[in-house]
């Protein structure tokens, strides 16, 4: 049976990463800057071998399993770290593995040439292949809106016509969006006869994109667990130390029981996210697991972030307190790769519970 626990290696990885993030990540300061992606932090992740976690060892990667990438995402979620890990290391990485692109994979693993898949962040895996870019030979024209983790990418993987193309990002017009989630800013891409290199065609291209988005949806659940966990821990801490009516507010049942409910929700989300990561690792039941993960964990992160704001009272409504970054991340992530109802509708097909 699928292991839902963390291995020792995974726990060690988590500890190391958490320590590094504590020292080097500061999203509240970062979002005040014009360049919101923390390139230094990305560099450090690459130096720890995490950019290439899924890349085979012979290409300079760690040849590790998606279960470990899920642990990385938990920690990055906990830190709302403004790095393009999900889009580059997981989604684009999975697409490249599917296409078999040793050079691009090696560049990704080294952290030197970040890659992003040029599809809308809100697009679900089930509708994966719906290019808004056309290809005339190797020249691409069209646009893609609201793409994640493409701002600092050097290479864009672009579904166009019937193929998947690699495009030099500097030749593409990238316009930053004012994103709800400032710790993962989106951008709009425009192609105007831009040259690309064909990576895969037809069914191969579709498979590459679908697998990439399924991995993204499945592992995003772990990021959502991390977001929820930070919200829970931070609110528990606050409830222990904040006194009103001569008592710590955490001694009131209204606060205590709501936090207990969040803890129960996080406990469940962890089991679901671990199941999803294992499914991707074992290439078994991936579609069900990814849909389940997004149908479930999206809401848990939102629930935890909303409880965090509420139970902090006024302070939770301020710009100064980081709670809002988690609320925006949670809400934004809940729409990423398809909203929860879209995943439930997909489950209805997969497990034979047809509409009325």
């Amino acid at each position, binding site marked *: 049976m699928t292991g839902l626990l963390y291995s020792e290696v995974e726990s060690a990885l988590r500890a190391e990463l958490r320590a590094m993030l504590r020292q080097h990540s500061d999203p509240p300061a970062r979002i005040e800057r014009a360049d919101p992606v923390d390139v230094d932090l990305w560099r450090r992740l690459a130096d720890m071998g995490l950019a290439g976690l899924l890349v085979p060892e012979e290409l300079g990667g760690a040849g590790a399993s998606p279960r470990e990438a899920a642990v990385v995402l938990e920690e990055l979620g906990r830190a709302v770290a403004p790095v393009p890990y999900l889009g580059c290391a997981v989604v684009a990485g999975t697409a490249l593995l599917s296409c078999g692109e040793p050079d691009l994979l090696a560049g990704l693993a080294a952290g030197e040439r970040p890659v992003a898949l040029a599809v*809308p*962040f*809100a697009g679900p895996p089930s509708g994966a292949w719906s290019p808004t870019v056309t290809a005339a030979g190797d020249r691409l024209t069209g646009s893609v*809106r*609201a793409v994640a983790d493409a701002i600092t990418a050097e290479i864009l993987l672009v579904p166009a016509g019937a193929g998947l193309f690699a495009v030099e990002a500097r030749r593409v017009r990238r316009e930053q*969006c*004012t*994103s*709800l*989630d*400032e710790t993962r800013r*989106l951008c709009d891409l425009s192609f105007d006869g831009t040259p690309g290199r064909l990576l895969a065609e037809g069914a191969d291209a579709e498979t590459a994109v679908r697998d990439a988005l399924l991995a993204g949806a499945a592992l995003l659940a772990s990021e959502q667990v991390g977001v929820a966990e930070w919200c829970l821990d931070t609110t528990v801490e606050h409830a222990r130390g904040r*006194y*009103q*009516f*001569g*008592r710590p*507010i955490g001694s*009131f049942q*209204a*606060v205590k029981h709501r936090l207990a409910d969040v803890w129960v929700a996080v406990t469940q989300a962890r089991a679901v996210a671990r199941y999803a990561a294992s499914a991707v690792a074992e290439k078994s039941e991936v579609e069900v697991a990814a849909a389940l993960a997004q149908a479930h964990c999206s809401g848990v992160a*939102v629930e935890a972030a*909303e409880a965090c*704001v*509420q139970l902090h*009272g*006024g*302070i*939770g*409504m*301020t*710009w*100064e307190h980081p*709670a*809002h970054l988690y*609320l*925006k991340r949670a*809400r*934004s992530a*809940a*729409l990423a790769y398809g*909203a*929860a*109802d*879209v995943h*439930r*509708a997909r489950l209805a097909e997969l497990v034979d519970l047809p*509409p009325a």
Partner: protein
Amino acid sequence: MGSPPTTADEARALVEAFLARGDLPTEKTEFLRARFDAGLAWLHYPAGLGGLGASRALQPVADEAFAAAGTPDNEPRRIAVGLGMAAPTLLKHGTAEQRERYLRPLWTGEEVWCQLFSEPGAGSDLAGLACAASKDANGWVITGQKVWTSQAHYARWGILLARTDPDLPKHQGITFFVCDMRAPGVTVRPLRQLTGEAEFNEVFLDEVRLPDAARLGEVGDGWSVARTTLMNERVSIGGDALPREGGAIGLLARTWRDRPELRRPGLHDAVLRAWVRAEAVRLTGLRLRQQLAVGEPGPEGSAVKLAFAGLLQEITGLELELLAEAALRHDEWRQDRGPQPEFPLRTATHRYLRARGSSIEGGTSEILRTIIGERVLGLPAEPRADLAVAWRELPR
């Protein structure tokens, strides 16, 4: 001024007679002063203080008659704290001099008021406040920090709670003041919210001197004075009578109706549930209003406030889900402090974020549930350890 009007027709007749006067000023402030002096400002206030001692139920009649005649109003939204909270408190607890001095410019909007109650350490437990007032020969010296003060940056006066005796139990050592916002030592700083804007302020009071005439009510009676203020806050939070689909639900319903490409089967029932819930809250507010009109103010006000907060949060969250990709974008995180567009004209992301505050401001939903449980349902209070102890001794 004769005897107060007792029917809607009589109230309308008074307004018409006023408007028919030959000497009416046209300049806005002058006009409002004249309206006040005629007792047609707030009809239920006493004669001489902008009213006629009439029933509260006649006020909307007069307001509508003035609005129909196209006369300028006092921008009630801009001076909400003055109208809703400072005025009833001044009326009930102010001296003759204070009522005479403050009520007219308050109502005409010449002087804006703000509220200096909440503190970083005293939110739900407002009576735990720490802002200190000490007496000397010349009056009072105030030092402390207040927070969540809207309109402080253009307010002339603030209603202020300060602790005059830390050795008494917390409710007993508080005194109520009118704070001159131009006094030396008053510093107002914008407080940025998660929406990116600064709707509110922090107010720092550093040895601010107030005369004893600025005191409202007796020394140590501040908490009972403040109850007048807070009760009026809760009543006013019910908001305006809205038509069906008048609030946030209307925006959601119109998006669903007008943009079929956004509709998803899994959201249909959720939208309908929200519609039903919104209509139920609306009808509850309407029923409350009818009760108030016949002078049976029930406790439904707190039900409406509690239900409205949850409803607004649900609807604005659902709106993000419906918009999907579009909800990944915001318009602008930095905003000027000038007047902002009304709620319906903001982005869905703004509405969602701002709505998080509706279950916190004006009494958290947790506190409201306790109030309903104890005051409406008569359930026993929790054992309290903070009521009989000197404020100074309380853990915080």
